[in-house]
């Protein structure tokens, strides 16, 4: 059975018992005043809303059942701890809640319309009228604080911290909600929608200025020597990134907070050509060619400090390993090369072969390979082929290749 259904009968039974027996002096709800239904028309302070149908109107307007007599006369039915504290019949004025340490049987009502916590700033300033005997219940409602607010008041003292919306403290005629047909949105008094939403009434610009002024004492200046990004990078080449998570709940632990990201530009590291190529091969996907940034993300340890130490350890190991040359690295073949190298490639062999055959057919004396390699046409051809292979096919690359081939084979136009 769902939880609600199990407890519903108990609540209903309790309510029934309460309504049957004479009201306990502790809880003496007067039907005129409280309850779920409505109050007497005289006390109606809610602006006219939807008009109730006739049946309900009759019920509201009629006099409520007379509050049961509980007082000195009902001493016999009062609970035992009450009987000793009888109130003298002639007393008219009762002290405020400050003197309410002795529980007094309250028959009749001195109504306190303003909520104890609504106008928290002014305190419980209940204007306590004389305690009436059973019957008449004057409604001495304390007017909301908004009516006494100056236009130039200090708003940060009305809402010093984040708090729920208090209609009696906010002097704005706000309405919120979907209107009934041919009606207006409901007003702000008792509007649950306005309470539900988070409000920023405590964060007006003057309030934020006060926060900043208070926090200034705890801040230090940014070092003046680090006034540009380049200088920051030059002095602090390794960037460490960690994330802190804030959530609502009784636990501050979040497993995602242990991830540490280290970023460093390889140009800031002391690497020669071989070391850089080896490092890039070692890290694989963690290196970005466009920005020359190596990113290491560590999350294999349970704590953030451990992950940071592990990341720095990885960086150190990579650096030292890339400077070492192993024996098997000499077996690096053409497929392992990162970029195209023209020396000892097929293109070079083909070009040389062609040139030698041309020279032989022209019956020129034996020209050595080195001369051919050093000649301008061959250098041009080499450059254009390297550009094509490394950068891909672009307009300029292709035209350059065309020109170099024409010069190589001595073809005019």
């Amino acid at each position: 059975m769902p939880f609600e259904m199990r407890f519903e009968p108990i609540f209903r039974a309790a309510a029934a018992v309460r309504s049957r027996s004479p009201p306990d002096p502790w809880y003496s709800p007067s039907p005129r005043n409280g309850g779920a239904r409505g109050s007497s028309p005289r006390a109606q302070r809610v602006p006219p809303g939807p008009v109730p149908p006739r049946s309900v109107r009759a019920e509201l307007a009629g006099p409520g059942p007379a509050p049961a007599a509980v007082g000195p006369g009902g001493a016999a039915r009062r609970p035992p701890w009450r009987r000793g504290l009888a109130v003298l019949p002639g007393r008219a004025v009762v002290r405020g809640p400050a003197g309410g340490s002795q529980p007094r049987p309250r028959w009749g009502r001195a109504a306190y319309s303003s909520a104890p916590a609504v106008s928290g700033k002014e305190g419980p300033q209940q204007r306590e009228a004389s305690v009436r005997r059973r019957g008449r219940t004057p409604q001495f409602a304390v007017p909301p604080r908004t009516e006494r607010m100056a236009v130039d008041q200090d708003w940060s003292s009305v809402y010093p911290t984040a708090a729920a919306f208090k209609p009696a403290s906010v002097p704005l005629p706000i309405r919120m909600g979907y209107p009934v047909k041919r009606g207006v949105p409901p007003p702000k008094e008792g509007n649950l929608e306005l309470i539900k939403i988070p409000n920023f009434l405590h964060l007006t610009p003057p309030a934020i200025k006060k926060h900043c002024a208070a926090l200034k004492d705890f801040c230090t200046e940014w070092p003046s020597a680090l006034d540009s990004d380049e200088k920051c990078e030059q002095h602090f080449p390794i960037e460490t990134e960690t994330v802190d998570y804030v959530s609502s709940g009784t636990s501050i632990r979040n497993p995602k907070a242990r991830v540490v990201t280290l970023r460093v530009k390889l140009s800031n590291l002391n690497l020669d050509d071989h070391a850089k190529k080896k490092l890039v091969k070692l890290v694989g996907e963690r290196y970005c060619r466009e920005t020359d940034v190596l990113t290491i993300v560590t999350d294999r340890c349970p704590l953030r400090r451990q992950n940071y130490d592990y990341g720095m350890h990885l960086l150190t190991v990579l650096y030292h390993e890339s400077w070492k040359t192993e024996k098997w690295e000499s077996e690096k073949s053409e497929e392992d090369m990162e970029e195209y190298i023209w020396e000892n490639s097929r293109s070079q062999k083909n070009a040389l072969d062609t040139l030698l055959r041309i020279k032989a057919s022209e019956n020129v004396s034996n020209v050595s390979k080195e001369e051919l390699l050093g000649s301008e046409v061959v250098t041009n051809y080499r450059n254009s082929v390297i550009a094509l292979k490394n950068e891909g096919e672009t307009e300029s690359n292709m035209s350059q290749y065309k020109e170099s081939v024409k010069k190589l084979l001595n073809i005019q136009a």
Partner: protein
Amino acid sequence: MTYEQAHPPHYIAHRKGWLSLHTGNLHGEAGAAERAVEDSFLRRFMYGTFPGLLADEVVLKRRGNLLVICALLSRALPPSKIYFLVGYTETLLSHFYKCPVRLELQTVPARVVYKYL
């Protein structure tokens, strides 16, 4: 019926807000189940501690560790008794949940009617 009762649940995020705000239901955040259990207990607790006084549903807000319970009460009890109940609720719940609990009350003379059926 109050505004809350008059709108069925498919109007949430269209005409109604949420009665309970916490980070547990966000994407990638944990703790939704714990908050839901706490919410149901808190609503039952409020319903029982302020018998017949709740004019509308209880709104629960969580700011970090702090738990704010916003309740709409009717004016059936004198303030001294309401003060006692507020103190009782706050201390008991703080000890129970090991987090600061704050009660923010608003009283209305009668249940705010949105429409009649």
